[in-house]
């Protein structure tokens, strides 16, 4: 919980990782390039006081994660969103066993989401069923830009992807977080094209699709889809830190999201360990849309509370203390289904 000026905020960090990018875990040069790219994000967009030495950035471990997120970071609950990247890292990038063990130790604080890659075909589908049971999965993180053999990416509307999404729906894995990256094949299309999200959102209305980085660098395409698909949500991973380096740009992103989506479909994420939640939460609570940006309405305390935690808590059925709720709470999934029926 975070308190400021007599207001109390329930904080849910919807996108965190426990990764291992140390040299001994890097399979090849791309493993180094990948973490170096993250480290450049970290150095470029965060305040200097929050910049870590490179060595610290490669691996944090559970103890440091708990301190950064919960002890120092005001977060009430956080959700692991792992990227496997087996083509880049020997023992994967996201550390499944370590993260799951930590989530079992702190079930009130942590939810473990797992990941899948439809290119593993039947074997992967079987594995998904086992994983859903073992991890009690409510959600998954899909990273369509992963390399696999000769393939350097996949699309959500691929045939095998549909089979995995059908299984997810059957298994109650309702919350599908998607990282859109430079997926390939064919290469001559827009690599960040979100048209495949549009298709699956239409075909799988029982699932929620959270587009991480709110479609950046294609904010407009994402907004256009999200306007038409009520089960498409915006994850603010990587968009959040602009609040420090480019506050006016951040205001524009939030302003556009509120206009095209609504206040119930935007979720706060630190994207730990690229950034820590503490400064992001502090800055967001203090943040106001600049007065001269007359095209956007003010960002109210109620809306901030929803974005910082209530929206994701409703999606994951995580109980929020009554005194931290708002007068007009985000609809819970069940309520919404009833309303539709």
């Amino acid at each position, binding site marked *: 919980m975070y308190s400021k000026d007599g207001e109390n905020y329930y904080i849910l960090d919807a996108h965190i990782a426990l990764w291992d990018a140390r040299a001994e875990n890097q399979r090849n040069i*791309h493993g180094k*390039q*990948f973490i*170096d*790219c993250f480290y*450049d*994000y970290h*150095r*470029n*967009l965060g305040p200097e006081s929050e910049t870590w030495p490179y060595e610290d950035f490669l691996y944090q471990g559970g103890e440091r994660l708990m301190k950064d997120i919960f002890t120092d970071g005001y977060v009430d609950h956080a959700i692991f969103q792992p990227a496997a990247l087996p083509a880049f890292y020997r023992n994967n990038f996201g550390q499944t066993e370590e993260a799951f063990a930590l989530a079992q130790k702190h079930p009130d604080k942590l939810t473990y989401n797992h990941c899948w890659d439809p290119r593993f075909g039947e074997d992967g589908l079987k594995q998904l069923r086992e994983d859903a049971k073992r991890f009690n999965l409510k959600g998954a993180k899909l990273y369509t830009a992963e390399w696999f053999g*000769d393939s*350097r990416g996949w699309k959500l509307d691929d045939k095998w992807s549909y089979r995995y999404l059908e299984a997810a729906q059957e298994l109650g894995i309702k919350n599908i977080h998607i990282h859109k*990256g*430079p997926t*390939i*094949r*064919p*290469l*001559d*299309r*827009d*690599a*960040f094209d979100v048209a495949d999200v549009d298709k699956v959102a239409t075909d799988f209305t029982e699932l929620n699709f959270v587009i991480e980085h709110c479609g*950046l*660098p*294609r*904010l*407009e395409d994402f*907004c*256009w889809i999200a306007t038409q698909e009520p089960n498409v949500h915006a994850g603010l991973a990587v968009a959040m830190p*602009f609040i420090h*380096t*480019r*506050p*006016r*740009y951040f205001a*524009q*992103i939030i302003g*556009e999201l509120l*206009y*095209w989506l609504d206040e119930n479909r935007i979720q706060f994420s630190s994207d730990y360990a690229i950034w820590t939640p503490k400064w992001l939460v502090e800055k967001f609570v203090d943040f106001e849309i*600049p007065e*001269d*940006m007359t*095209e956007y309405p003010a960002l109210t305390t109620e809306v901030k509370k929803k974005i910082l935690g209530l929206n994701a808590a409703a999606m994951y059925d995580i109980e929020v203390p009554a005194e931290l709720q708002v007068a007009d709470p985000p609809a819970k999934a069940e309520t919404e289904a009833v309303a539709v029926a």
Partner: protein
Amino acid sequence: MPAVEERARAALDEVYDPELDEPITDLGFVRSIEARGSELNVHLRLPTSFCSPNFAYLMASDAKDVLTALPGVERVVVQLDDHHDSDLINRGLAADAGYRGTFGSEAEKDLEELRLTFRRKAHTAAMERALTGLLRADADLAEEQLHDVTLGDLPEGRTTSALLRRRESLGLAVTPEQPVLVDDHGHPYPREEVPVRLRFARSIRISIDGNAHFCRGLLRTRYPDSGSDQAPRPQDPSTSPMEARAS
């Protein structure tokens, strides 16, 4: 005639990052230009190792094309540094293998369609900049009235000339009586659609501007000496002077 390096740099001013809608020279993507006799060696660099390989290829091959066309230049070597596909792209460029020859089964057709998509986005963003500029300058101007604004109504300046350039690149007319707010084919929208079309154009402009600031910043983080190679990005109507300094 100016030195070969100088002419090469001027030629590279015409090579654009399709997504950011800026010359690769202004962005600081040109790492070095070296001439030996009639041979030119140019190194390009990008903000991350994982920048989209199609765009990376597009810029590198456009660079090779404009340099090869320079009088007195007989051999051109363009190399893309530190990209996950550097080897593949550099081999393809050296062999003049073309895009499909370079990427093989990963490519289905050439890149013209992709290029057109981003030209259209650049035009839409330029249109929004011009119209938002008018709205900010005149508090009494209602959004729907933008339906009647023609190119001749726009003030002279960088924003207007940028819009005209984008229209030309799409083959759209640039005569003064042409309406400003048009679709990708130059057709005006119905009056009642103007607010939502302007709104969508704005999200495109915000996206492009945001990507440009992000990529510029990342390049400086990755290559600390690259800041001095970057020209300031022209300001959009909603950017304050303070933020322009910070970018």
